[in-house]
């Protein structure tokens, strides 16, 4: 259906003239006396609805069905006409509800039979309806604004449904002519206005209502063209249930609806709770839900029956005992909103409540052959019930190949769990629309995409590609670094994570480095840490542009990690040297690791003042940029010891340290002293090393 078809705007014009106060002569007994009571009692006289009441309740029923099936974009403008017109609502979407209309109708009240019939006419309302059709709706406005240059593509069409009591066919013709003239007049006015649109097509549906037991003075007439702008049709209907049926048919025609009757609904009896009888419930919905039946000509086979003297067609589908699994959804080809025809009958409300409570019902197409074909499903989403169309024929998607047959299908160590966690962190939530947020930043969906971008800057897909994401210790930092902005607290957490890693390295904790693809024991531990630090740096580097605090996390890592790259290079070269030299080198490496730990401790101390004992403040000169001396181990332990408990380092100590360090550079330090702890050096370390024992044991002792 086109967005701006005739159905976009419907103007209801209901006659409020004195003659509408006349009784419909359809009587309703509302005093139902039971046998036990009311003996010898005179029952209350039956009440009867006026023509007005009939017109109003049937038009409200039309609106109810329409709003149920089309909550948006199909608009109603309700107009009441007597000596003047009363417009009860506007085209605005928020005015579109039966409650609004009922409230306005209550304010109007029934027609006043005492009013002078001479000055009352439905014409006032019809003129107002034409004027109203020229008014632009918010949807038309929006479409025109978006289309810009091609705004003329937005059409203005509409329908006027007039409920009245006409006097004769001539009277009807007069009404038609009047509408035609008004359209021409209004179109002229609209041509010169921004807020009005001229009418391109108008459908006038005149419903003549007359009391029961009377003969009609107006004849039925199918749709005919009054002019290129206006078509008109006349329905002459008795008040009461005939009118209700007529409007029910009209709402189906006007909005492409179709009817489905759910049959065999088992329902507990009110009186006998342990028995259940089968009931039928009729639902209205968009007719596309029956497309398969229409196309196949199966309509009659599917149990189409005519009700209400052949005026109405409905497709009968059989209730299937509800199933819990919703696999069927995968072959669902469409979902359509429904509205029960008889909304407050007990079977209807039982069915709708059952569905609103989250249950689903499969519907079966009755076939003569006896084969069972499930063609539809009823289920609710967010307080709305939808009729789902299920594909009952073969699917072209059957037997798809396994994903493991495709690209990357043979890889077995995907970080499935991690990505699941990633997805959960990146789930979406509806953000209420507000003008302020729009002005201030990106729309929520763009923010969601930006978050995905940040979260995936460094995201290795397989376990063997990563070290840091396999380490519990890195988690706090990895979770925080992807954030758009870091708080001071976040920064602290990141730094703590880094110190923790330094600590691990000092303790020489094993790392979960993948040995896949490498022979033997895999890389040596210091190499492992080098890989880990490099990876951590890669991760953090992708975020440094984010904020100054992100940069500080990187600074912290660079400051804390064991070696600047040049040193690494040197170390590598060192390995190739002779055995003896190699050993010496190793002890130096070990020592420097030790020192970096000390530095981190210093930084930690600066952050958590006095919490951690601290001594080696000489590392101040140990910036990653400064060249590392071969013999950089200062021997300050004795001097430092008394100060350890004192917390922050004094200026004097710093100065002294600096001088000491400067001095120590001037001579080659003994290898033993370099690796000593508290001036005690362990002998024959290399033996231990070669036996694969923890050579950093002595490092721990400094604590």
């Amino acid at each position: 259906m086109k967005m701006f078809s005739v159905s976009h705007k419907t103007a209801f014009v209901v006659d409020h003239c004195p003659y509408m106060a006349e009784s419909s002569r359809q009587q309703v007994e509302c005093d139902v006396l039971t046998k036990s009571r009311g003996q010898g009692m005179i029952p209350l006289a039956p009440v009867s609805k006026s023509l007005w009441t009939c017109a109003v309740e049937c038009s409200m029923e039309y609106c109810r069905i329409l709003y149920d099936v089309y909550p948006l974009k199909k608009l109603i403008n309700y107009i009441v006409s007597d000596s003047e017109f009363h417009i009860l609502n506007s085209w605005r979407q928020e005015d579109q509800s039966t409650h609004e209309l009922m409230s306005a109708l209550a304010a109007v009240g029934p027609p006043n039979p005492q009013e002078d019939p001479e000055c009352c006419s439905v014409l006032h309302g019809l003129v107002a309806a034409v004027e109203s059709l020229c008014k632009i709706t918010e949807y038309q406005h929006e479409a025109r604004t978006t289309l810009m240059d091609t705004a003329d593509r937005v059409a203005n069409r509409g329908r006027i449904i007039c409920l009245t009591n006409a006097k004769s066919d001539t009277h009807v013709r007069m009404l038609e002519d009047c509408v035609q003239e008004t359209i021409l007049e209004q179109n002229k006015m609209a041509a010169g206005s921004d807020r009005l649109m001229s009418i391109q097509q108008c459908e006038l549906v005149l419903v003549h209502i007359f009391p029961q037991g009377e003969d009609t003075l107006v004849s039925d007439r199918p749709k005919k063209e009054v002019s290129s702008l206006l078509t008109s049709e006349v329905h002459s209907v008795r008040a009461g249930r005939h009118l209700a049926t007529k409007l029910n048919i009209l709402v189906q025609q006007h909005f492409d609806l179709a009817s489905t009757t759910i049959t065999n609904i088992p329902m507990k009896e009110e009186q006998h709770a342990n028995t259940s009888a089968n009931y039928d419930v009729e639902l209205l919905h968009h007719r596309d839900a029956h497309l398969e039946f229409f196309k196949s000509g199966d309509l009659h086979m599917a149990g189409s029956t005519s009700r209400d003297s052949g005026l109405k067609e409905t497709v009968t589908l059989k209730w299937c005992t509800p199933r819990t699994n919703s696999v069927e959804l995968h072959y669902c080809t469409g979902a359509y909103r429904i509205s029960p025809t008889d909304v407050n009958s007990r079977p209807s409300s039982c069915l709708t409540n059952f569905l609103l409570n989250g249950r689903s019902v499969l519907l079966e197409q009755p076939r003569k052959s006896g084969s069972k074909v499930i063609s539809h499903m009823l289920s609710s989403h967010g307080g709305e019930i939808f009729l789902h169309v299920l594909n009952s024929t073969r699917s072209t998607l059957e037997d798809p190949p396994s994903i493991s047959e495709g690209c990357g299908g043979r890889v077995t160590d995907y970080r499935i769990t991690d990505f699941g966690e990633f997805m959960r962190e990146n789930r979406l939530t509806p953000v209420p629309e507000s003008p302020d947020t729009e002005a201030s930043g990106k729309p929520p969906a763009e923010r969601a995409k930006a978050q995905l971008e940040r979260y995936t800057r460094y995201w290795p897909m397989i376990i063997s590609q990563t070290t840091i994401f396999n380490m519990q210790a890195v988690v706090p930092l990895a979770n925080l670094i992807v954030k758009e902005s870091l708080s001071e607290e976040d920064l602290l957490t990141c730094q703590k994570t880094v110190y923790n890693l330094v600590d691990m390295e000092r303790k020489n904790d094993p790392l979960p480095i993948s040995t896949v693809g490498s022979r033997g024991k895999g890389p040596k531990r210091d190499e492992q840490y080098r890989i880990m630090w490099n990876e951590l740096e890669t991760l953090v580097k992708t975020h440094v542009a984010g904020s100054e605090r992100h940069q500080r996390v990187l600074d912290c890592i660079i400051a804390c990690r064991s070696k600047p790259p040049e040193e690494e290079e040197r170390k590598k070269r060192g390995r190739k040297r002779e055995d003896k030299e190699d050993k010496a080198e190793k002890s130096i490496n070990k020592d420097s690791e030790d020192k970096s730990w000390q530095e981190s401790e210093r930084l930690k101390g600066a952050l958590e003042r006095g919490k951690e004992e601290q001594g080696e403040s000489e590392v101040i000169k140990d910036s990653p940029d400064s060249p590392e001396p071969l013999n950089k181990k200062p021997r300050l332990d004795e001097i430092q010891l008394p100060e350890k408990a004192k917390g922050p380092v004094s200026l004097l100590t710093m100065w002294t340290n600096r001088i000491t360090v400067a001095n120590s550079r001037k001579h080659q330090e003994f290898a033993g002293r370099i690796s000593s702890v508290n001036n005690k050096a362990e002998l024959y370390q290399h033996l231990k090393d070669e036996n694969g024992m923890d050579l950093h044991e002595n490092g721990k002792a400094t604590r």
Partner: protein
Amino acid sequence: MPTVVLMDASLSMTRPVSLEQCSEELQRKNLAVAGLTMLFEHMANNYRLEFTSLVAFSSLWELLVPFTRDYNTLQEALSNLEDYDKTCLESALHGVSNVVQQEWGHACPTQVVLVTDGSLGIGKGSLRHSLQTLKGRPEDKKFPLPFPFPAKLFIMCIANAEELQMTDTMHNLEQLLQLNGGDGQIFTMEGQLCLKSVQSMFGRLIDEVYSPFPAVLRCGNLASDVQVFPRPEPVFLDEEIDPMPRHILTEVDDVGPGTTEEPEEETSANQQAGKVPNFCVLLHGSLKVEGMVALVQLGPEWYGMLYSQADSKKKSNLMMSLFEPGPEPLPWLGKVSQLGPISDAAENPYGEDDSKSPFPLQPKIKRSYAQNVTVWIKASGLQTDVQKILRNARKLPEKTQTFYKELNRLRKAALAFGFWELLKGVAELLERECTLLPDTAHPDAAFQLSHAAKQLKLASTGDSQYAAFDQNINPMHTDFSGGGAAGM
């Protein structure tokens, strides 16, 4: 999208192709077979997942190969094709229509490839005759076009355009296309009829219709090249406002996982790459394990979802379902552009232990069946409502709240419908109930009944003081109801 190959097996197909430079003698049929072989080979390599069937026709039609993914079978049937009598296209098209409907129903878009030499029969049963007698046919003898399912008709003529234009064949074929709603194309051979020209013709068909649909699936910086089966077709939204078809962008953006119809399928080709980690496999694995779906953006205001679809117990693959184009494809998700990251929310809307969900969104106004609406179109509706009031009236004062709730509901509806007579009637009924109260009744009951009756009568006058829609009749405060201060 399944394909039906409709192969002309009439005698005219055996006409030899006059060719000087060619050593062995070729029939038109041989050319047709060569062309189709090329098509089948292409599909076996690039469209393994598509279903194809082969129908041969002359004056009768026969389903040689039902819909299959096995292109060897198709090829085999093609090479064993025998020669029959005259061409009768109408019955063959009926055949195609039946074959497709039986297999796929009416919703599945299908491609029909008709291969013919362009001599479309003579006399009764010829295309010319069929087209001339289109009008005034009885319901059960309608021409099979347009098909009852969405179909594209491709006519492969083993003839060149000049040859076809000499007779009215071209005109008739064009008419055929029009009958199908203009969906399709006529292909003719260029230059001399030979293997080369038939291959170039089928090459054009392949390029236009059977080219694969490569795309990139992106999730932030993670990306994967994918191929989409079946190929998504452009969509017309509203020919009035938006006369251009909507195409899917080939850069597919994975917006982020959200919460649950039209499936499309997606798989990656190129098997050598099985050992290189692929984002699709990762995504599929995690979606499967977590039982989640991912929202995917296919273009401006066009979305879909990705999920793991398992056909059998062992095999599963990543599926993409396309939603109707538009900013709000699923009402219970709201506008997709308004879906933001959970980190924006003050507290996790899914709850710390995943016990909650911000979905589904509830509509602003409840549907009629979800609110207690009043409809009196059937007398029974009105009777039920009145009886409900009377039932509660007899159980006063215990049922005071329900009594007034039902009374006010009836009052509202009666006022809106201008049904003042009913208000008076119910007032009388309440007064009568009052007189019928047993001696043992609570004294409050009589007070409440006469109060309610009085209020209804006042409302039935239409006096704005008493007949306001949003006003309710409140229970009367009596000494018995424990309110203390009695208010009359």
